[in-house]
């Protein structure tokens, strides 16, 4: 029996894990790295690059390097998050035929599940090289706030990568799992996740194997890259003052500054001072110029202090949403490489009044949790019971623009619920079922997941026909909806695939198109 891998498909980096001999292990790629940049690019000579190679051309060939596709996946083109990404991204984002955002690089347009699929395919390849066997199945993690469409698109990405996605689980849930926290009785846990490009704070409640997300908050445009950017700006300013040369328009210099800043930031989590040496960063008539600079931990902390404080505002909001005080939290879990920074650890500890849980690498904790879940799915003797909950309420749009909730948020999944609705006009022969997700009472303020029509209703005065609408949510959080006229027995149903998702035909076409290319990743 082949093994099931766990994949943390991150905005900035991804990580693949597996359980071996009862222990979950992160699988390194051939370059020895345990995480792989979630980047896909096309070089100027037409080569397709994934991971570290794509990252290396991210500045010098920015228009042809896609990153952070996770911010776009499963969203509509007009979504404010997509519009903000368009403003900030050097690559082109265009409106797709399904009203979805698509990424245009190297003269070709890619769907977001396709880009995510390319990254997942690479993680699959890394696992297969390490395990020396073919891998067909995976558990993939997603942010707790992901709605049905975003989850469905992530499943599609898995399919494009040649993986059957056995389960989609929430990232904070995976983090808690990798600590084995689901077995320790009733607890409230704060998962502080500061990754490369996003910040998420989740408050979970664990009770008898059920993990409930009480609240999530965060900022999808705040992460470790903001810290790097502050260092880059600082170095550019210093170089301009001391050498009189402006490096802002020089993409080669900017790429080097970005790489060196990221490295210096990581080193400063273990040391008080680092040297940044960039020989031949520029030249003029007097010859080459070198950038040699000493950066201290203290100066770095001054540069990014406000960014760290910004995360704590989201933490405060999350506690309010969850209806708890900071001191009610039993455990604090840190996720994401940026949480290695001593200033972050110090401020989080001060806020919650307790030291964060130690022991698992913050870069790997989510991927490891996914592997734990993957192993549990294979092992029929495993007594671990993991029950996730719906992140958002589900229901249908009703007369007057209202939103009738059928399943409240935080309901444990899998779940099935039904309700009887009726017609609003005499002799109405059809009803349009609009499936919505969200917390507003107004349909217009909720996410439209999909819609379908139930026709052939027996002619009758308004209010007389009985139409039963049933919702099913499976363990992945994927929603199916059916509507049945109780008088005629006529039924219509859909597995919700809203306008942002791909059809099976589109997915098959993408799979075939990608089989032609050999995607490259090294080191």
């Amino acid at each position, binding site marked *: 029996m082949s093994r099931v891998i766990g994949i943390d498909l991150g905005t900035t980096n991804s990580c693949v894990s597996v359980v071996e001999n009862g222990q979950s292990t992160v699988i390194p790629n051939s*370059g020895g790295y345990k995480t792989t940049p979630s980047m896909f690019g096309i*070089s*100027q*000579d037409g*080569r397709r*690059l994934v991971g570290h*190679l794509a990252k*290396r*051309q991210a500045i*010098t*060939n920015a228009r042809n390097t896609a990153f952070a596709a996770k911010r776009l996946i499963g969203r509509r083109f007009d979504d404010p998050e997509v519009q903000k990404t368009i403003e900030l991204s050097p690559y082109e984002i265009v409106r797709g035929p399904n009203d979805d955002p698509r990424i245009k690089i190297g003269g070709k347009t890619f769907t977001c599940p396709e880009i995510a699929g390319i990254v997942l395919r690479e993680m699959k390849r890394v696992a297969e090289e390490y395990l020396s066997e073919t891998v067909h199945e995976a558990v993939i993690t997603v942010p707790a706030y992901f709605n049905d469409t975003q989850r469905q698109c992530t499943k599609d990405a898995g399919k494009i990568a040649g993986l059957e996605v056995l389960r989609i689980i929430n990232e904070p849930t995976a983090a808690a799992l990798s600590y084995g926290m689901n077995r320790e009785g009733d607890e409230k846990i704060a998962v502080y996740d500061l990754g490369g490009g996003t910040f998420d704070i989740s408050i979970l409640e664990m009770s008898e194997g059920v993990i409930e997300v009480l609240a999530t908050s965060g900022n999808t445009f705040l992460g470790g890259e903001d810290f790097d950017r502050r260092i880059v700006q600082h170095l550019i300013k210093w170089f301009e003052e001391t050498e009189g040369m402006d490096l802002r328009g*020089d*993409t*080669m*210099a900017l*790429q*080097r500054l970005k*790489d*060196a800043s990221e490295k210096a930031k990581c080193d400063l989590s273990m040391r008080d001072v680092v040297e940044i*040496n*960039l*020989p*031949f*960063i*520029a*030249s003029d008539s007097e*010859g*080459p110029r*070198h950038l040699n600079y000493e950066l201290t931990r203290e100066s770095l902390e001054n540069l990014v202090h406000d960014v760290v404080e910004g995360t704590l505002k989201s933490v405060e909001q999350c506690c309010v949403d969850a209806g708890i005080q900071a001191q009610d939290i039993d455990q604090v879990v840190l996720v994401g490489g940026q949480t290695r920074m001593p200033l972050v650890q110090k401020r989080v500890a001060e806020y919650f009044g307790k030291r964060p849980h130690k022991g698992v690498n913050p870069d790997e904790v989510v991927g490891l949790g996914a592997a734990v879940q993957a192993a549990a799915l294979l092992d029929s003797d495993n007594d671990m019971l993991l029950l996730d909950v719906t992140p958002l309420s589900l229901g249908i749009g009703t007369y007057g623009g209202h939103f009738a909730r059928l399943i409240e948020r935080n309901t444990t999944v899998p779940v099935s619920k039904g309700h009887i609705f009726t017609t609003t006009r005499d002799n109405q022969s059809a009803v349009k079922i609009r499936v919505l997700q969200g917390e507003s009472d107004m349909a217009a303020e909720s996410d439209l997941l999909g819609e379908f029509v139930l026709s052939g209703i027996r002619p009758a005065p308004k209010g007389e026909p009985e139409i039963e609408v049933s919702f099913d949510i499976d363990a992945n959080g994927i929603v199916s909806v059916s509507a049945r006229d109780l008088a005629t027995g006529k039924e219509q149903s859909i597995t919700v695939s809203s306008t942002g998702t791909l059809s099976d035909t589109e997915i098959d076409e993408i799979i075939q198109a990608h089989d032609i290319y050999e995607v490259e990743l*090294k*080191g």
Partner: protein
Amino acid sequence: MAQAKEEHVAKLLRQGLELYGTGEIPRAFMLWNEALELDPGNEEALDYIRDADRRSLPRADRGDAPSASIVWDARRLVQGENEEAALELLVSAPNSVTLECESMVELLRAKIFRKYKNALGDLDKIPRVKEDAADLEGRNLPPSAGFLLSMVDGLTSLSDLVTVSGMDRFEALRSLHRMSEAGILELGT
């Protein structure tokens, strides 16, 4: 042997004419120049080049004496197997944008590129920096070389470095070749 060479020159001249007829003028010049290298002074090749250059040069300084003499000097450098100097002369000279110059530049770049590739060997080789930072800073390298050096990590191959650098392939390979010749880089597997 001489007959084979003659046939090859004739073929190059004919192919050049065909390309010229379809509007691929720089490529036609390349072939005629190649014919001239095999058979220096070949009148037919010289005629084609002169004639075509006269007829089809809206952006050239036709009849410009410096341009003609630069081409002449470049040819002599090529005959002396100093192709890099010939290329340098052609690309740095003002008023040298004739199609003949352009085609010669292309031909030289293709030839020198092959030379670099042969010298470096298998482009899957992995370069490593041999010198320490202090010695390196004493050298006079351009920023593009510094950029390439910053990506040398002992894992990335020459071929991948050229690709991800985003630099012109010729320029990237020239820089890597020069650094290898100067003992800054060593190549391994």
